[in-house]
């Protein structure tokens, strides 16, 4: 089935089996392997990408459901050789070890900053109708859809705190 995807600003026309997930379309068909497959069932977050401004698990979405969508992956976070602030903060705080969950963590963290700016609430937000302060608890709750088995959570939180405070 013919499907157009705008990935990191580049337009791709794919003719693919309806069964192909967005994740597999990125990895196996476009060979954008930065987005990772950890569980293939929406249980780990390694496949997180930003579609039309929102983070999703690309493993639980069919490519054909994204015809015309704008997809941002880890490959699209930096411009040329310049890392974006979050990528650099991940290095500075050693927010990664094996690196396999890292692209998903980064996409999640990018989206998180926008979500907080928009005033979206979380499970730990005390006052649903008030402004959202980006406390440590808010960050950890909002990043809990991204497992890290090396357990770099402390570094991940520190990296996000640093970028959020800039």
């Amino acid at each position, binding site marked *: 089935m013919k499907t157009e995807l705008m990935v990191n600003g580049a337009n791709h026309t794919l003719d693919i089996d309806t069964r192909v997930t967005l994740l597999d379309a990125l990895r196996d068909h476009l060979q954008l392997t930065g987005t990772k497959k950890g569980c293939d069932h*929406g249980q780990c977050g390694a496949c997180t990408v930003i579609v039309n401004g929102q*983070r999703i698990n690309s493993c639980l979405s069919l490519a054909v459901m994204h015809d015309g969508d704008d997809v941002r992956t880890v490959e699209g976070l930096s411009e040329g050789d310049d890392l974006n602030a979050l990528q650099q903060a991940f290095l500075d705080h050693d927010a990664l070890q094996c690196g396999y969950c890292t692209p998903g963590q980064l996409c999640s963290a990018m989206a998180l900053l926008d979500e907080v700016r928009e005033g979206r*609430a979380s*499970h730990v937000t005390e006052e649903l109708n008030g402004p959202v302060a980006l406390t440590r608890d808010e960050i950890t709750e909002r990043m809990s*859809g991204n497992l890290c088995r090396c357990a770099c959570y402390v570094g991940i939180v520190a990296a996000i705190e640093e970028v959020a405070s800039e």
Partner: protein
Amino acid sequence: MRPFDFCKPATPENAIEDAVGAPGSAFVGGGTNLLDLMKLGVMAPERLVDVNRLGLNQIEPIENGIEIGAGVTNSDLADDPHIRQLWPLLSRALLAGASVQLRNKATTGGNLLQRTRCPYFQDTDVACNKREPGSGCAALGGELRNHAVLGTSEHCIALHPSDMAVAMRALDADIVICDANGGTKSIALRDFYRLPGDTPHVETALNHGDLITSVRLPAPTGDRQIYRKIRDRASYAFALVSVALVLRMENGQIASAALAFGGLGTMPWRDEAVDTVLIGERPSEALFEKAGETLMSGAELRPGLEFKAGLAKRALKSVLMEATR
């Protein structure tokens, strides 16, 4: 996944036509549950009808309530200013579920139809009456933890996993459905789900081709709303037990109470006898304990699930204490 057709209809009517055209078709909204099960081989539709382009993503105040389009995502629903203000229970239940990534895709209609996470249902190598009617239930006699203790039968003890639907049960939601004949009907959530009995594969009142188009919530019956979810880790886990409460106090007495429960039943659980115990009474620990006894009086505590009784009673009591403080 078996090969399937994919349709992208633009109106609800077309979506229903597409669905009716293939007996093995399924609607797909967010896909977060359906694709999971398709990959496991648990569900194998021959056609997927994408319901994301039907214009069902509005949230609109209606007379004495609010109408939520079936395609509204869990994230957007939780963040809607009307919902946050008047139905905070629903926001809270949604935010307690899954992860941001999943909530950004999962839809209101899809969440109502979320299927059980019973590990035996999800395993096509073992027997399951829900998956294959009449094949037996491998969960009975198996390892039980995320299983139901209320509404079970000797054919199925599968637990309903939703948080959202539990809140909607306490909020007396109505489900609006377009059917294959072009009609529109409304079903109270109370009547929407089916107990497993000897037909555990029949989970709801929907017929093939019926499309959920919206959910209507009446004005809340109480200003005190709490969703309490107890789980195995701090986030991103299904409920061991959850309690949804809508309550109103008047002159030191409980004027109205609506309680629903997750993690306990084969469907989002509401037992009006529990509400009845409370209404018109002054808050007291003894009263709350009585409510807990009432709730769990019919529970089947199979091995491994004994803890649910104590946990549910404690959670209920705690939520009631908080609400009537």
